[in-house]
């Protein structure tokens, strides 16, 4: 059985197959049932345990590259916090992300206002936008959030926002919800803020960074972890929502099966080749 034609296969055929496998379920969903994993449940329960009306820091450290995985998490977490009447302070430490984060949060707030919830910018949620400086900004916020962020994303003076008058430093927050796509992100928040300022923390991250944060989950530094689109979809399921993450999971299933097939097939081709040549 000579599979050498497979080896000389132009990789653009593989691109075509991936394209079709992803496009298909988006047009005609299959609806493979979602499971549920412990880290996602812990994330949901940690937020559910926040006292009503507490102030929460939500640092959305990602840029458009993390959009498909992290925007659904941001929306679902923001809705759960708003429904618990928590007040949310949002920051973004990624250079390309503050525009996307503000658009996501404002879009969510608009949706909830349309559903009749009374959510006011400046009182219930504040977006302080971007600040350069990686870990330096995190430690700076420990001395005073307003010192590090003199103005918010919409160029209002931070001191003019009613919610910010109740926020001094990390001790004013009941929890940190960190949506992170890499550096600076969950690891830096754990190192610089979590244990040093006793700020309980949960993290939603891209799937690529999830394995690196499991040790923090096991050690208790993180109280919950959402890993990639699967984590976002399971979180949406727990919250009874059907967002873009859930809709994408069918395509994930098919594409994952295809990539697994590629690994196996690639090695079979190489293995048969090695045996047939004398």
């Amino acid at each position: 059985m000579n599979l050498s034609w497979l080896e000389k296969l132009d990789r653009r055929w593989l691109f075509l197959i991936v394209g079709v496998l992803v496009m298909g379920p988006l047009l005609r969903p299959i609806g493979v049932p979602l499971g549920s994993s412990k880290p996602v449940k812990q994330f949901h329960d940690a937020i559910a345990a926040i006292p009503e009306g507490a102030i929460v820091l939500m640092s959305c450290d990602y840029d458009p590259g993390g959009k498909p995985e992290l925007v659904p998490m941001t929306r679902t977490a923001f809705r759960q916090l708003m429904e618990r009447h928590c007040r949310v302070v949002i920051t973004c430490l990624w250079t390309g992300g503050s525009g996307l984060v503000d658009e996501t949060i404002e879009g969510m707030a608009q949706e909830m206002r349309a559903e009749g919830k009374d959510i006011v910018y400046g009182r219930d949620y504040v977006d302080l936008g971007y600040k350069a400086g990686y870990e330096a900004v995190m430690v700076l916020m420990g001395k005073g959030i307003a010192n590090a962020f003199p103005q918010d994303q919409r160029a209002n003076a931070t001191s003019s926002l009613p919610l910010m008058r109740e926020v001094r430093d990390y001790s004013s927050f009941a929890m940190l919800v960190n949506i992170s796509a890499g550096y600076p992100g969950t690891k830096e928040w754990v190192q610089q803020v979590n244990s040093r300022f006793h700020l309980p923390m949960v993290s939603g991250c891209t799937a690529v960074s999830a394995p690196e944060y499991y040790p923090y989950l096991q050690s208790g530094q993180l109280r919950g972890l959402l890993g990639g689109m699967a984590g976002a979809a399971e979180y949406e399921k727990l919250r009874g929502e059907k967002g873009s993450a859930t809709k994408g999971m069918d395509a994930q299933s098919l594409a994952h099966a295809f990539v697994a097939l590629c690994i196996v097939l690639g090695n079979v081709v190489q293995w048969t080749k090695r045996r047939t040549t004398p």
Partner: protein
Amino acid sequence: MTLSHDFGTWVAALLTLCIFSFLYKDNPLYKFAEHLFVGVSAGYYIVLNFWTVVVPNLYDPLYRAFTRHDPITHAVVERTGGPFAGSVGDYRGWFLIPGLLGLLLFTRLVRRVDWLSRWSLAVIIGVYAGLKTTGFAQGDLVAQAQASLQPLWGHDFWTSVNAILFTIGLLTSLLFFFYSREHKGSLGIAARTGIVFLMVSFGAGYGYTVMSRLSLLIGRFQFLLNDWLGMK
């Protein structure tokens, strides 16, 4: 299928297709989109860092310190002490120092005086050396070791098996990164066991990375199908 009428969505969709054209082969459309992207991102980084850091964190405090007026509302800023009477979080005139250091960075563009920029580098590297060292020492060394102290027996069978396996994996993986002796004899066995655990963790990493990459493609197709072509 209702095509979107928004000019912006059309621009985004066409540029998305330009970049996807790289899959077929590197072509002028892709080159145009790529250079457009580099130009926009470099420009955006400059404007972003100017309006969100240089102005609010540097210019405004200096303006208030030396003119006693608010830079935006021009109202009088009443406060005690001169431009250099700073306190935690309110450094007023002292911000001249980072301002100068920031400007010194630009001497890198001029060969003759680029050594002046070493002063700015000194501050950045000094601050980050301190922050990273303490951050890693506490978060990744001591806290991780402390979390690994767990009873190896005493509760139900499977938990003990997992705890013992975990500790063996941790200790042999640590020994894999040992450089003071050749990996022979018992150290050799430990290193080879360690590499097994390491390879399993890299495999898990590979699996999770596949999901991340596919999510990005799903996100783009969702944009093209729903926002641009209007297929729900």
